[in-house]
């Protein structure tokens, strides 16, 4: 009897395999869950252009910054981590502006009064502009806030960072694009 493959045996075998596979996948799912999400992703694509008007009424476009390394930071006034990283952004910008690095803040999913209050509170000296229809954010594929993109002199996005940036990592990432 042993060794002959009856439909019954085949069906039993399939049932065991199916159950084993399901359980393995679920175990893997549980294990994977406890890993933190990756915050920093290396990418390499041409940065989408944008043309906005800053809160001060100045035009701001990526095209006008061609040839310079650019840090694009998406933020919103209601976003708590954005408050955390705001001082770091300002400080690193002050350090690196002499090397030609440009910082751009883009405010998304916000109301204007709240955004202006945020700017009054943190006083960033780099240009900040609202993106009222969210089109720039969608063009960049922004999902969470804050999200920061590092664009090199050739206009390529080299790195994307999700979540609040610390001063150290921000400095390191700016180093990458300022080379």
């Amino acid at each position, binding site marked *: 009897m042993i060794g002959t493959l009856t439909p019954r045996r085949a069906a039993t075998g399939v049932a065991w395999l199916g159950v084993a596979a399901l359980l393995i996948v679920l175990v893997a799912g549980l294990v994977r869950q406890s890993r933190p999400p990756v915050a920093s992703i290396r990418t390499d694509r041409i940065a989408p252009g944008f043309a906005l008007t800053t809160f001060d009424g100045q035009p701001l476009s990526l095209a006008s910054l061609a040839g310079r390394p650019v840090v694009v930071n998406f933020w919103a006034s209601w976003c708590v981590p954005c408050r955390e990283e705001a001082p770091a952004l300002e400080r690193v910008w002050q350090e690196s502006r002499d090397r030609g690095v440009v910082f751009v803040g883009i405010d998304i999913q916000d109301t204007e009064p709240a955004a202006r209050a945020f700017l009054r509170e943190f006083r960033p000296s780099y240009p900040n502009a609202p993106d009222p*229809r*969210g089109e720039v954010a*969608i063009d*960049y*594929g922004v*999902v*969470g806030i804050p999200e920061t993109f590092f664009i090199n002199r050739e206009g390529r996005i080299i790195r994307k960072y999700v979540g609040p940036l610390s001063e150290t990592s921000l400095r390191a990432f700016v180093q990458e694009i300022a080379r």
Partner: protein
Amino acid sequence: MRSGRPWPGRAWVTLILLTALLVLGLVLVDRARADDLEREAREIARSLQCPVCQSVSVADSSSELAAQMRALIRKKLEAGEPREQIVAYFVERYGDSVLTEPPKRGGTLAFWLVPIAGVLAGLVILGALLRGWRANPAPGGVEPAGVNARTAEVLRRYEERVRREAGGPSDIAEKSPGT
């Protein structure tokens, strides 16, 4: 047997059914005419997953990003962009996972084939089983030797009788010359 009161049923049963279904048809037809652009926009939004939500499409999400995406879809449609191009735009930004259905090509083609293969396998197994059963007639199988053979048997006779009286078809009735 067929004597007794005349049965009024058939005519009005048919009438009621047809009326009900006619009404249904008219109800549905009325809906079929909708603004083309509006419908196209909705269909595109339905095919996209809201990137900041848990399993809700862009069409159904109440999040601000989804609202902005819907507005962008409409804007692109008004600008004359074809549907494929709009969907491709979002896929390029958010990856394949922005689609509510995995693409039927490349790696995810297998995903689509698995359930179809599963159903087909089920049918094949069923066919093989039925054929096998018919090829080897029951070992000791007389009449229903099943669990509640007695009640089943009694019930069967009763049903048979009712059937016969009802003039409805019954395999026993067909064979027995008495009717």
